């Protein structure tokens, strides 16, 4: 598995996700926002967390239009895997690779805390290591993670089973209190139509280590790394 982590000016979890991928056994390289091509043989493109271009204007807006994104779009169109985490999710939405937008958290505060999620399906390249419906304990760190889409889009996403993760409490219940940002339908992550592009707000890359919070994020990277190139 060859992963390429795209670095935009202002990316700041590029190192964290590279570490998680390497620990899972992937070979990791990086791509620069101004590059026209991805590294040869890239299987998985990762858009990391951070504040690309300061997240000025709208989160992910400027990065969504960076030069490298044409290559990322082409990669996705070929069926290649793309994972956007946090700012990466915002970039995927802004670039049109995923539908909807991420707006300010409903309480307007940045929030960093542990967060439970349900794994909505385990038959995609990203979630093979989990059970369907499994409750995992990861963390979030964002100010604009409030997923919004128009009713038709939302119905389509739901109908197609494209919700990847939902916010929940420790028991797996999807309650209003467990939703940290006001996202519609407690959505924490969604897939593209062909399930090869995943955008998610939480940070599995920061939960790969018992010493630092836990290991519930590991499955995602282990599942990806185990895919044959």
């Amino acid at each position, binding site marked *: 598995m060859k992963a390429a982590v795209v670095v935009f*000016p*202002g990316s700041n979890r590029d190192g*964290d996700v590279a570490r998680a991928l390497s620990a899972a056994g992937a070979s990791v390289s990086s791509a620069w926002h101004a590059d026209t091509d991805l590294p040869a043989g890239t299987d998985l493109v990762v858009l990391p967390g951070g*504040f690309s*271009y*300061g997240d000025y204007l709208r989160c992910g807006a400027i990065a969504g239009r960076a030069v490298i994104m044409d290559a990322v779009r082409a990669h996705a169109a070929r069926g290649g895997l793309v994972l956007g985490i946090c700012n990466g999710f915002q970039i995927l939405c802004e670039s049109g690779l995923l539908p909807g937008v991420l707006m300010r958290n409903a309480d307007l*505060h*940045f929030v*960093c805390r542990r967060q439970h999620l349900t794994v909505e399906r385990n038959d995609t390249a990203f979630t093979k290591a989990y059970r369907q419906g499994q409750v995992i304990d990861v963390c979030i760190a964002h100010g604009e993670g409030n997923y919004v889409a128009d009713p038709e889009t939302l119905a389509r996403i739901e109908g197609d089973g494209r919700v990847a993760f939902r916010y929940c409490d420790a028991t797996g219940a999807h309650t209003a209190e467990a939703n940290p940002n006001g996202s519609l339908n407690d959505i924490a992550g969604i897939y593209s139509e062909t399930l090869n592009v995943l955008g998610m707000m939480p940070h599995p890359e*920061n939960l790969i280590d018992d010493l630092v919070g836990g290991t519930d994020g590991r499955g995602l990277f282990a599942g990806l790394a185990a895919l044959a190139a």
Partner: protein
Amino acid sequence: MLRNDIAITPQLVAEHGLKPDEYERFKTLIGREPTITELGIVSAMWNEHCSYKSSRLHLKTLPTKAPWVIQGPGENAGVIDIGDGDAIIFKMESHNHPSFIEPYQGAATGVGGILRDVFTMGARPIAALNLLRFGSPDHPKTRHLVGGVVAGIGGYGNSFGVPTVGGSVNFHTRYDGNILVNAMAVGLARADEIFYAKATGVGRPIVYLGSKTGRDGIHGATMASAAFEANAEEKRPTVQVGDPFAEKLLLEACLEIMAKGCVIAIQDMGAAGLTSSAVEMGAKGNLGIELDLDKVPCREEGMTAYEMMLSESQERMLMVLDPDKEEEAEAVFRKWGLDFAVIGQTTDTLRFVVKHGGEVLADLPIKELGDEAPMYNRPHVPSPKLPVIAAEAVNAPIPAREALIKLIATPDLASKRWVWEQYDHIIQGNTVQTPGGDAAVVRIKDGPKGIALTTDVTQRYCEADPVEGGKQAVAEAWRNITAVGAKPLALTDNLNFGNPERPEYMGQLVGAIAGIGEACRALDFPIVSGNVSLYNETQGRGILPTPSIGGVGLIADVTKSASLPFKAEGEAVLILGETAGWLGQSVYLRDVCGREEGAPPPVDLAAERRNGDFVRELILSGEATAVHDLSDGGLAVALAEMAMASGIGATIDALPGNLPVHAFLFGEDQARYVVTVPSAKAGEVIAAAAKAGVPVTRLGTTGGDALRWPGEAPISIADLKGRHEAWLPDYMAGKV
């Protein structure tokens, strides 16, 4: 002769914060009347903030050396050796006045400034902390200030990508018109790859890097040292706006060219921007500096030399580059989209020469700007000693269980989760202990070693007795680091005091420094960096004297670090250290009895060391399962915190017969810890403590869902926790 278009009147001199005798001293030094640009330069260099003129004499008494100290005070930040070729670089700095005027930007640029101090030296920032003091919650401005400051700290640090792992928030009416925002940054570097401000070599290019210069914060450094008047709000347009995005790029670009060997000397532009950075680089290297301001990248048109020299625009650096690598360095900066301009050169004249529009506007002796800055031995009087309040002299107005329920939800003791959840405290993936414990623990790279970090000061103790309070601040930081199992190595301090021209406030500063120094020496805990913020007052009344301490410790294996939640039911709860029931200046006396009175608890440094060393050994040997040091609110509050963090209760078997219950439960005697050990081990640990001369008592046992002590109804942990967590969010929502 330099052309002088603007007559330097006594009024102009006064507006620049220079006293008449200081101005005369400057004139004698240069042998003529200065230009307006020169007046600006000297006002920046000789103000309190840059010259430490009131504090220098006393700061010299502080211990700054230890075998593990690589660089003490005097550089951008202090540097300590943590073994394996690794060094930790850290410092704390205040942004009090700017944060009062514009809380979001003031706090944000405070964080930006201290991060820059750390990465200027070649370190990648791995942690940030802060210490915040606000006015009374009832004061009409407080809520707005809390919201803005917290958002600003988060807004900057989160975007920059450093975990904010700890801090401290207190409220007191004496900060109503003058809040404190002290920010600390901690970075990691290789011990043999540290960069300094000292320029070397004549004729080398001086390069300006980062963001463009605007009219931000002109006179900001002067403002930081000027007492607040009632019309402070009118000084607003000098507010600086932070750009964490630019700072992140600056970090990456600087580290990249440092790794390529391009950098000879580097200095960030902080307070007094281009002036102090250029003067410092030259003076430290025994070189002159010549600047051509026509080359400075400006954001606004028509900026004068005066404005450029005093601008405090953020996210800027000054460097002396290796001339052979100038192109390489420039390419890196262009790649990151940052400005890069050669704006001058080093000379052998020892003069600081500033040109603009082909004309020389300043020509000053460079060493003297720093070395000849005024230094004062200001008159100071010690604070009057306050009477010791005997435990028996304090009546309990309410039962102890009610007092605990009340205290746990007071502004100072309530959970600060609302604050630290707005800070990304997990980025970089090394935060082993998050905010909420005694000290944060951050793993170094892939481990196993890590550092422990804390910020502390108990200002009400300092007000009551500056010497004892200074000692206590250091001791508490030392104790917090010890309580997670780390060895305290060094500290940074941020001395926030009132007007030094008033002998009683100067006396507080002098006393606190004496106390800090004494504690540092006794605990082998040297000071490697720091900052002084004076003139913190509103309409003549000083803030509580607040010498903030930021401590750093080392733990060889982070898997052995201890934390405060109870770990299991049925474990023995021990208290180590001596409990005399000291209620003077306690939060119990203040918040339950409504009295801010008496002498603060004395600090026995030998006992601190003995008890702390014992606890650390207990942690490292794996016997202690939960550890918490005792501070505000004493034993009952510590037990409550350990219970609330775990959901496990505890029972105190017996109350001592020789002390009032409330003095036993809420007294703030120093050098104490609560430790749990498996019950089967208790006897052994008690024997070992006794052998080490550490007072120890088995209080009781963990278990159940309540805190219990004889004679009163149990206190539900869930109920306590609900109140403890609710106060701050409710307050911010305007509900309380």
